[in-house]
């Protein structure tokens, strides 16, 4: 009798495991940012003409980046899809980051898998939701805004306004990189430099297509503050040399 109950429990838990999905995103550098950057660079007299021209060409030929977000009911994994990239040496991307992100809503963590500083945990963003709505594809989305404080390689803090459009129709709190924690799947993120837009939503995909790379408990995870310190130290060392 006990075995039957156990079996029943297991099977029911399997069935309730229906919350999963794969979302494709495309990130593109904003034209406005691209133009502004080029204008700024043209004015800069320290940079030689040939270098200027190379950088301008890179910016003008910036390619979009493709990302995928895989999630189940409590975890998500966001990573860049390199397979769509052309093999022609170095091209400029969208500036929307390169690193994979792992989120877990049970343990409340957002971890960036940064290749230089191992793992960096991010603080959840403090969103404000406005009553403004728009459709992305056929999906109704609400506008949420927040300000993110970032740390530049030059060693100073700067703020960026973030606009996220999320769909309450898809009630999961995931989104691209650390832009999550809203009452609905994030379908679009606008920042000064780039825009990330969802191009495909695939709910309840085949289980074996789902790719979620967990972060081990034993891994050393550094906080954002610590990582800033490390960046500053590294930059100092580089200047000395």
């Amino acid at each position, binding site marked *: 009798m006990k075995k039957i109950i156990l079996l029943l429990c297991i099977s029911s838990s399997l069935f309730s495991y229906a919350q999963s999905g794969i979302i494709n995103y495309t990130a593109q550098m904003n034209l406005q940012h691209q133009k502004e950057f080029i*204008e700024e660079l043209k004015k800069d007299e320290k940079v030689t003409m040939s270098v200027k021209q190379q950088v301008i060409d890179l910016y003008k030929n910036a390619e979009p980046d493709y990302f995928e977000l895989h999630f189940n009911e409590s975890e998500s994994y966001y990573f860049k899809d390199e397979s769509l990239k052309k093999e022609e040496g170095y091209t400029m991307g969208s500036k929307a980051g390169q690193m994979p992100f792992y989120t877990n809503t049970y343990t409340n963590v957002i971890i960036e898998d940064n290749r230089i500083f191992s793992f960096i945990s991010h603080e959840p963003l403090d969103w404000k939701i406005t*009553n403004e709505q728009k459709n992305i594809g056929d999906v109704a989305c*609400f506008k949420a805004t927040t300000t993110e404080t970032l740390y530049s390689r030059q060693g100073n803090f700067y703020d960026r306004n973030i606009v996220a459009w999320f769909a309450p129709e898809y*009630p999961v*709190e995931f989104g691209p990189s650390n832009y999550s924690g809203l009452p609905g799947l994030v379908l679009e993120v606008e920042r000064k430099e780039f825009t990330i*837009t969802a191009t495909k939503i695939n709910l309840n995909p085949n289980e074996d297509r789902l790719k979620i790379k967990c972060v081990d408990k034993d891994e050393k995870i550094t906080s954002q503050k610590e990582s800033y310190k490390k960046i500053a130290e590294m930059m100092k060392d580089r200047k000395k040399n």
Partner: protein
Amino acid sequence: MRKPYQFFILLFIFFNSQSYAQKILSGVITDSLDKPLTSANLLAVPKDSLQEVKFSITDQKGRYHLSLKSMPYTVTVNYLGYAKKKFNIKLHKDLVKNIVLQEKAESLEEVVLEMPMVVKKDTIIYNVNKLITREERKLKDVLKKLPGVEVDKDGGITINGKKVTTMLVENKKFFNGGTNLAVDNIPADAVKQVVVLDNYNEIAMLKDFQESEEMAMNIKLEDDKKNFIFGDIVAGLGND
């Protein structure tokens, strides 16, 4: 007679009443078997569209917590795989409200949704392959199938009633930039994306200072068809 402290008292009362106006709606969200639902979403949209929208995501015990002003809200409760629940509420005092959601039967099916059309500030991007049937021959046949786009018989294009003034192919002006040559000559299967740029200005720096009446259409081509040959071959046979 105006006394300065009167103003401060007024200010004090005003802020006090503001903070007292916050009421708390809380409770537990469960399924029909009384199992708490983690990460269920609540969205409280005020009737007054100028007020802030509030939200809450349930914790591991299914608990939620919304601090609302005493004005009418529409609260929507959502959990993937469950039927959504909607109710109107106006709080006069703190309230505990437990919510039960019903499971949807068809939740295990795979659903794929592709975005055919993306609208950004003053840009519309049409992902052409989601909108056409592959029977199209020329660009004009493609354009006629895109929502909001019209092509007249002289080759002029209007988008939501506004005329396209500049035609670009891969970011470069197509011949003189007129639309009529492009719509009749670019083969339909070479078109990957149609990007419409409203308020178009050739000098990008002026964009923010100057409203322009210009509208541009940029045709992005399939990677393997960047060098297409255009034109039609017409052959006829005489009676001799």
